[in-house]
């Protein structure tokens, strides 16, 4: 009768499969942040002169502010559902490393909300005047940046888990911490557009993503446990 206990890898796989299955059943939810990103980047040319040479100058800013705000919006999808129906509690009580499970959840969240941004960013960039040669650099920068933003945002979402309210506290917590990603991401994008080597800011973005991946699990587990009390 005693079935063997799952390893952490098996448990994480089950969790990832569950989250993906849920996302598939509620397909609209994951696409909303993407839609928001596209709307925001469209606003910039509308607010300015649709002159491509001018747009090219602000393209890095528009892309990254859009990405930042979109990832902020997407954070609602991370813990709200599970927090409300008691599933998060069951995760905390299943005997597997909680930090690891939360990291798995954040990874799926990035796959569903960050990765679409990565794929769409080159399109948005070219609509803002970026040359085709800039695309690989922009892809790399947005990839690393969204990973870091997802992790930082997840910590904020964990801290505000049980709070009602309109999400402006979450924004106040997450946006200042996201500033370094914004700075280096926009810089990398600008260099890509100008056709110059962008290894330096990319390495820094990668370092930030790695630092976030190292620190976030601890902070996430601590924050969510506090929120579950």
């Amino acid at each position, binding site marked *: 009768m005693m079935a063997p206990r799952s390893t952490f890898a098996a448990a994480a796989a089950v969790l990832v499969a569950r989250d993906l299955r849920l996302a598939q059943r509620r397909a609209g939810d994951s696409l909303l942040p993407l839609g928001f990103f596209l709307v925001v980047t469209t606003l910039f040319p509308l607010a300015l002169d649709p002159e491509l040479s001018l747009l090219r100058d602000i393209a890095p800013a528009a892309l990254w502010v859009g990405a930042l705000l979109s990832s902020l919006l997407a954070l609602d999808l991370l813990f709200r559902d599970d927090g409300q129906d008691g599933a998060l509690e069951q995760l905390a009580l299943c005997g597997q490393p909680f930090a690891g499970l939360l990291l798995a959840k954040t990874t799926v969240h990035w796959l569903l909300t960050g990765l679409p941004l990565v794929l769409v960013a080159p399109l948005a960039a070219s609509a803002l005047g970026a040359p085709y040669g800039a695309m690989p650099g922009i892809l790399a920068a947005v990839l690393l940046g969204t990973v870091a933003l997802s992790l930082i945002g997840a910590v904020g979402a964990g801290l505000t888990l049980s709070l009602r309210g309109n999400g402006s506290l979450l924004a*106040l917590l997450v946006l*200042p*911490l996201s*500033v*370094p990603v914004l700075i280096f991401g926009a810089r990398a994008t600008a260099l890509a557009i100008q056709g110059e080597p962008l290894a330096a800011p990319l390495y820094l973005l990668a370092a930030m993503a790695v630092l976030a991946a190292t*620190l976030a699990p601890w*902070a996430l587990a601590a924050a969510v446990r506090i*929120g579950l009390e």
Partner: protein
Amino acid sequence: MAWVWFHRFGSPPHFYRLARRLTPWFGWPALILCLYGVIAGLGFAPPDYQQGDGFRIIYIHAPAAWLSLMVYVVMATSAAVGLIWRMNVAHAVAASCAPIGASFTALALATGMLWGRPMWGTYWEWDPRLTSELLLLFLYLGYMGLRNAIEDLSRADRASAVLAIVGVVNVPIIHYSVIWWNSLHQAPTVMKFGRPSMPAAMLLPLLAMLLGFSLYFVALLLTRARGEVLRRERSARWISEALAQE
């Protein structure tokens, strides 16, 4: 042996009495040092060869900026102590630090802007250090906002402790990112002044102000933390005894 001291310090009645006794030892020297710093710095220090008299605001701006950072570190450290050793007094200290740190940050920003006006012509120039101070202010506001939003005090303590620890790791990253960001545009940082090294008449008042501000912070922290401890333990018996002694 140090552990005994550590845990006694963490006991609320003990902390309350100790803080009361220590406060004047920090308060009076702070007052004297700041008086000296203000008078010597604003009145008697020689004018900077480049900036004339305008540089004098540094006697308030630099200590305020330095304190704004130091207070965040103290806040994060005591929050971490409270989280790890589950010490209520440490959480009370962290909670008391936040408004003080935010005020120093606001003061640094205000004096920085006042300094910028004669130097740059505008009140705000996205100078890296001022921008960094602005972001630090947001971090303080976020901390206080989170504390405020969580109703249960124990949960608010621990959640904001996690935030403070995450924040303190980010503060150097944010600071250097902003400096790097600004360096791209080769805007001269006017906050430096007067090469070569400062003469003693300029430096001494500055150091006095720095030390004075720091001592003032400790005195203010002890006072606020006492009030915070009192508020948290209001139903405890030791309070009526302690108040009877005052």
